[in-house]
């Protein structure tokens, strides 16, 4: 994924939702942001590799 097309809060939000579901518990906003960054970083890294 080209990071230029990332809209923070919209891009890959379904994957964030999937993670949130898998945890089974409410999560703090900072944990949510951290996980979201992980998802975006992974997507960008995979594309570049």
């Amino acid at each position, binding site marked *: 994924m080209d990071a230029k097309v990332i809209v923070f809060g919209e891009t890959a939000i379904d994957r964030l939702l999937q993670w949130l579901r898998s945890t089974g518990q409410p999560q703090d906003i900072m944990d949510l942001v951290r996980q979201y960054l992980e998802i975006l970083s992974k997507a*960008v890294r995979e594309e570049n590799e």
Partner: protein
Amino acid sequence: MTAAPTLPTDQHALAEEIYRLMVAQGAMFAIDTPIRQTLANLAAFLARREGRDRAELAAAIDAALSADSRFTREEVNGEVRFVTTRQGAYVPRDDTDTHSFKQRLHDPENPLPIDDISVVVSTSRPAITTVEPVYISDYWQMQLSAPPAEAEAEKVAAAEAPVAEQPVLEEAPPAPEVAPALVEEAAPEPAPMAIEAPAPVPVVEVAPEPAPAVLEIPAPVEEVAPEPAPMAIEAPAPVPVVEQPAPPVAPAPRPAQPPRSTVFTLSDGTAIDLRRPVDEIMAEYGDVLARVLAERLEHDPLQRIVSFGRKYYPEANLASFGKNDLRKIRDYILERNEPLLDTEIIADLYYHNPRQADYEGFRFSLNYRLHREKDFEFVGVEGAYLWATRGLPITGGKRVKAAEMGQITSYLVEGYDDSPELQSIEAIKQSGSVTRLLTFFEWEYGVLPLDAGLAALLPPPLLPEQRSAVLRFESPQHYTTYLVEVRFPAGNRGGWLQGLEEFFHEHLVPGGLITISRTGEPNLFHITYEEGPEQSERLLTFDEKKNRLAFANVSFYCVVDEDQLPTQSRYGRLNRLKAFPMGERRKAELMLEHVSETIGEQVGSPAAPRYAVTLDDLYVAFNVLRPGSRAYLKALLERGEDFSADESTPGLYYYTPAPRASAEEVEEEADELPEERPPLRQRYSSRYDEDE
């Protein structure tokens, strides 16, 4: 089973004999499974058994079986075979599925008429259905994001490649040339290998021996594991399509791709490089990203992720609470007569245990649901989610109205909060306690303005639109507990705490020093004061029934600041202050004029009065009627046209009221315009006199 055809007797007998032999050979076959034998095998077997010429017998067999409808003649690689089944003539099986449940379900043969669409479309579903997210694997996402140039290159390469498929008829190529993998495709069914496996069959070549009865028949090979090569040619009707391996094609060279960007930009222009470690990004932009993400999630039209406070949870996982649940919760809060924690509600009404796996999800669902109900109000803080409901008694009583207090304490949000000068915010956060002197207004009404010092100590609102929070103040000196409502500032209105009236009146006097400290629980605080020897003073009090201020003898046991203690000996004129209605006390300028005139030293003449008053006295007297900081008073004094500072004496001010009309002039004016003008008013409106 088909009947034997009419043939010449010898042919009929021969065909019947062979049919019997072949059916015996395939006795364990399915009724429609083909049983094959080569003409050579049949001729060899019968020639040996009957002692006839093999070639002659082969011709007879060929003629007899070809004329018999129960047999199908095949010729493969010059070898003649006959096929039959236990039920007679061989008919290839048709495997086309024309009666599947799926097909009948979706395309019923005789569909029922639909008179009313609501019969098949439920109207109870929401107008906007929740779209379940579909996880798309990384592979497809990469495919999607692949550049078009690459796809084009692949297309060109595919077009240039030689044709990989060509139709090959059955008799065209010899068996070994057929690709093994495609033989199955050519064969419509697993063919029994029958006579093609002659290895264990010693029948034909061992001629001179007398024929054994039965066992000489070549053993039929069960139609199991297909042996690839020779079977392909046995396929009957359908024209097989044989793929020949395409010659290797050199992969098209990929065009060089420019490196992808790893930097994304927020709406405010902040650029963040995703190659950096997440911890670093969080440390630098964590708060900004959290705000942006929260905002995006809040405006998500599908509301897939919902929030309560700092917690986020999938909307689809929320537990449902119906009207009965809400009524039950409301009744329980009213029964307990005070705001309740969410954990209490869950434990007492739903018997959920915190050790249950779904506890936190259930708790979130409860809070989220109550937050959306008008009958409930969130009055908790982070770590202690308290819920109040309509009908609960107001914490702190009704003496102070929220709208009035909000305006009275507006000076705090206007920049006249000088509390950090008395105790720094850092010290408060570090020590976890605030120490302050009580003014008369605070003591009388049990109200503390929410200045910066208290705001640094108390928890902030959890929700953006939260109006208030209910805290529990404990007095470790007296083992008493008080519910204190914190009203948060909103817009141009200030905040305050209320609910300490009883504690103040029982244990303290104006000028007393109190300390409020944090505890381990987020909504529990300690309130203490320094105890002292018994003192008796004639102090200012407020008689609410008579609505007037007066001095009374009071005994107290706390350490006080003598300058702030409103004694009769020092502030003897305070009882002359008018007990204005709270709605009027918000007019700070008028209050300041009234206070200055009441407690100031008259230094002018009766015709042109002038009052001298110090800032310290003004502060004490002003705070009898309403709260106000020294910074606020200074600003009012500097702004007021009738006030002037004494240049020689710091902290001394003069108040020179505007000259009033004389009594005669007033009477004349009243006579001239009796109907048009309102009744003669005192300086601060006649309503106050009526109130008094």
